[in-house]
């Protein structure tokens, strides 16, 4: 009965209505048949077939993944390129991280994305990125850690093993049995806290020297263990402490460079202004300029390239070497110029003693300048050549520089500690003698008149600067004494105890002592800039710029020079000493 009625209805309608009605009937017809369900785009779980990613903890994934791979064969081709990196075990998290990105987990009852946590990515990157960089590869940009959710984010869930430990007191299922090598390694890592192995052997992070062809074979030992080398970085300091060390050294070395560069430049444009006894301050600043340059070279080249050798697990600190140019360069800059600066400090205290205590004039002191230069440059040269000849240059695992005595106590004591103590002692003697004389001469100066105040201020300023040097120098000596005293026990603890026990007993160096040492090594260069902070400096620079204008060249030098010369003459005359017959105005320029 339906059909005739429909037919009748259609014949009465217009053509358009007929077609539209037909169309809607077709829609209803197919809607009833349920064909609309085929339009859904649900995720379909499929078993993981990529061999590398089987057994990582879940068994199902879905395609396409975030890299637009259509099937797991395509995934396998790309993810397998990371297999050498996985095999080398640069990070126990690398395999899980890669598979969770390439074969994402598919859960039947949870449809939102479930990527790895940012912490998993950062652990894998921290362990493997340095190795990739050695082979010329960067960490892939599309696997950057910043795009992954943080552990504990309630809006975006993510996968990390720590999540289970923090949220549930007892895991709902037993821990999965280790199926692959990476998991076994992860399991092995958790074993040490339970039982502490106290047998002495070359264990991580120490580097065993196994091959006889290795240059260090039978030449190094750590904690009395033969063929055992220290790693590239100080094992007692964490990654954060290492990062801060780089920042700390960078901060002070750059400040030192800027300050000393300014001082040296000011001296070069107006050499007449700085006479003895204050001239050694300029040379001392120049030495610190080069010392800071040595640290800056280390910052630019990097810890590993300057102070380390080897690759991967076999990377260790440099021992008894003279080969690498970068290491030698950093050593010479820091050691040679560091020692030269100490000698210049002794020269400064000596010349100050002559001027303040023995009442010498600047011309008389300048007469011996060639001897000062000879002592200041020759002694460090001899010592540096000796260190190089004895192959005593080695890497510093804390600062990442090359120096002497980092791995050898004899080198530390003989080439660093002993000279510093001698210099500090000698300079202090001169200072003490000078101050005693200064108190006696003060009464004589005061009787002279108003013009002696300026000279007295100069003497006091030089003395103050010289004393201020002794504080950092003493602290550096103290740090070195501390280091050489305890280092054998630190090395022995690395070989004979486990990390938890070392942490519990408080073994290991004090981080603050090392930071203090590096600061004190450079602070004198920073404070030496104070010496040029005065109106005279502005005048010197203005005069230097004005040299291109002829009308200004004569007045200031004449007045300044005559004023200073007059003061000097007054001092020497009123001091009661016999005037020197060889005095000439042009004489100071010949003493460079």
């Amino acid at each position: 009965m339906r059909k005739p009625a429909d037919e009748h209805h259609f014949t009465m309608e217009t053509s358009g209505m007929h077609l539209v009605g037909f169309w809607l009937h077709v829609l209803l017809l197919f809607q009833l048949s349920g064909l609309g369900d085929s339009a859904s785009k649900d995720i379909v779980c499929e078993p993981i077939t990529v061999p590398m990613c089987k057994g990582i903890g879940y068994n199902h994934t879905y395609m396409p993944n975030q890299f637009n791979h259509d099937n797991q064969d395509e995934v396998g081709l790309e993810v397998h390129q990371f297999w050498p990196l996985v095999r080398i075990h640069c990070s126990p998290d690398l395999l899980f991280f890669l598979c969770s990105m390439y074969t994402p987990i598919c859960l039947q009852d949870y449809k939102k994305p479930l990527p790895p946590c940012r912490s998993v990515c950062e652990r894998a990157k921290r362990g493997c990125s340095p190795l990739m960089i050695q082979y010329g590869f960067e960490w892939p940009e599309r696997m950057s850690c910043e795009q992954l959710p943080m552990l504990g984010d309630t809006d975006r869930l993510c996968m990390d093993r720590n999540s289970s430990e923090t949220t549930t007191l007892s895991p709902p299922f037993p821990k999965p049995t280790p199926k692959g090598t990476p998991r076994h390694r992860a399991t092995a890592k958790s074993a040490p806290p339970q039982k502490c192995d106290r047998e002495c052997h070359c264990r991580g992070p120490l580097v065993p020297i196994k091959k006889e062809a290795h240059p260090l074979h039978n030449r190094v030992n750590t904690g009395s263990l033969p063929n055992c080398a220290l790693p590239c970085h100080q094992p007692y300091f964490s990654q954060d402490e290492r990062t801060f060390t780089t920042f700390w050294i960078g901060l002070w070395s750059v400040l030192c460079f800027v300050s000393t560069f300014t001082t040296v430049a000011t001296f070069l444009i107006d050499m007449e202004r700085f006479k003895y006894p204050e001239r050694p301050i300029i040379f001392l600043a120049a030495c610190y300029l080069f010392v800071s340059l040595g640290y800056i070279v280390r910052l630019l080249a990097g810890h590993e390239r300057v102070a380390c050798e080897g690759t991967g697990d076999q990377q260790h600190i440099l021992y008894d070497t003279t080969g690498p140019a970068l290491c030698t360069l950093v050593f010479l800059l820091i050691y040679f110029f560091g020692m030269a600066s100490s000698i210049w400090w002794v020269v400064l205290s000596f010349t100050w003693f002559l001027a303040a205590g023995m009442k010498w004039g600047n011309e008389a002191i300048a007469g011996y300048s060639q001897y000062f230069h000879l002592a200041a440059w020759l002694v460090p040269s001899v010592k540096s050549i000796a260190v190089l000849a004895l192959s005593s240059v080695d890497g510093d695992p804390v600062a990442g520089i090359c120096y002497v005595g980092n791995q050898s106590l004899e080198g530390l004591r003989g080439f660093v500690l002993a000279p510093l103590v001698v210099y500090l002692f000698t300079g202090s003697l001169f200072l003490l003698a000078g101050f005693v004389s200064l108190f006696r001469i003060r009464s004589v100066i005061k009787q002279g008149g108003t013009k002696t105040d300026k000279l007295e201020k100069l003497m006091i300023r030089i003395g103050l600067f010289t004393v201020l040097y002794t504080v950092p120098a003493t602290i550096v000596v103290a740090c070195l004494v501390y280091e050489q005293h305890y280092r054998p026990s630190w090395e022995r603890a690395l070989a004979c105890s486990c990390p938890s026990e070392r942490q519990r007993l408080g073994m290991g160096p004090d981080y603050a002592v090392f930071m203090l040492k590096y600061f004190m090594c450079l602070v004198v260069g920073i404070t030496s800039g104070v010496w040029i902070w005065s109106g005279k400096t502005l005048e010197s620079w203005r005069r230097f710029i004005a040299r291109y204008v002829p009308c200004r060249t004569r007045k200031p030098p004449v007045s300044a020079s005559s004023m200073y010369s007059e003061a000097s003459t007054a001092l020497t005359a009123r001091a009661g000493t016999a005037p020197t017959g060889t005095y000439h105005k042009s004489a100071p320029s010949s003493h460079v």
Partner: protein
Amino acid sequence: MFMHLEVYYYAFILMAHMKTCCGWSVNNFLMTGPKAYLIYSSSVAAGAQSGIEECKYQFAWDRWKCPERALQLSTHSGLRSANRETAFFHAISSAGVMYTLTRNCSLGDFDNCGCDDTRNGQRGGQGWLWGGCSDNVGFGEVISKQFVDALETGQDARAAMNLHNNEVGRKAVKGTMQRTCKCHGVSGSCTTQTCWLQLPEFREVGNYLKEKYHRAVKVDLLRGAGNSAASRGAIAETFNSISRKELVHLEDSPDYCLENRTLGLPGTEGRECLRKGKNLSKWEKRTCKRLCGDCGLAVEERRAETVSSCNCKFHWCCAVKCEQCRKTVTKYYCVKRSKRVKNDNASRRKSYRLKKKH
């Protein structure tokens, strides 16, 4: 069984109608029409259905909410509207058909079509080549046009309007296609890439057409335009001057606030509306004002309890555990205002006074 019989029945009706009405060549139709029709009819139906569902989603919080009854009723009663809403419906249906045909083509459902590989191997840009499986949108467009436009055989302004809006829907699909790439290189580096054109989510097509709906162009034609040759020329000239990317309509929309059984409009009384809540767009936040306030209705608040998953956590390895939380949800509905009660009282008072006088 019944489904197939119905299909053949309607195919027969269509064939007979073509013969008697439009003078088509029966031989030509028999050679291509029935076979092609049967092959693609399921995709066409599914596509039109997806268009309807997208229409319902896009107008969920509008006064007109894309009711199916209105479309059916207007068909049967002979009253065809030519307003803005009709324009959107034609466009989204046409887009749905084209979209489904194109996607099913890429999925390999049809023997005579596949990926669009006309540009494969060519260099597309800095460091990437065309490759992979580009969706064959040209195929979907051709078949969709054959099916959907064939329903408009009239020569009047309404037919021209529908054909125009069908084309807008197809262009919406093409305009929202996007390029997707895959990286090639050692260890995950993006040294080179292979890219292809891919259909977007159909929601994007719906969003695109909703924007066009808000900016639809109204066409004013002379009243009384019939089927004369001069009128047809004027209609063609008018529609050709409008961009194929803009929806057009001939009439203004009726008042969707009120119930209109003749037009099949239910009105906004009893409708749910949105008022507060995060993640709501501006349009959604003004739902209560648009559906209730501006229509002279009040907003009623009703509370309901729901149970949903919350506090999901990942447990190593590997499972996600969620809690079941009870939550009180507040919903809002349009109801008549209480003023009518006052009006009724006033009316009663008047009648009482009349009695007294009398």
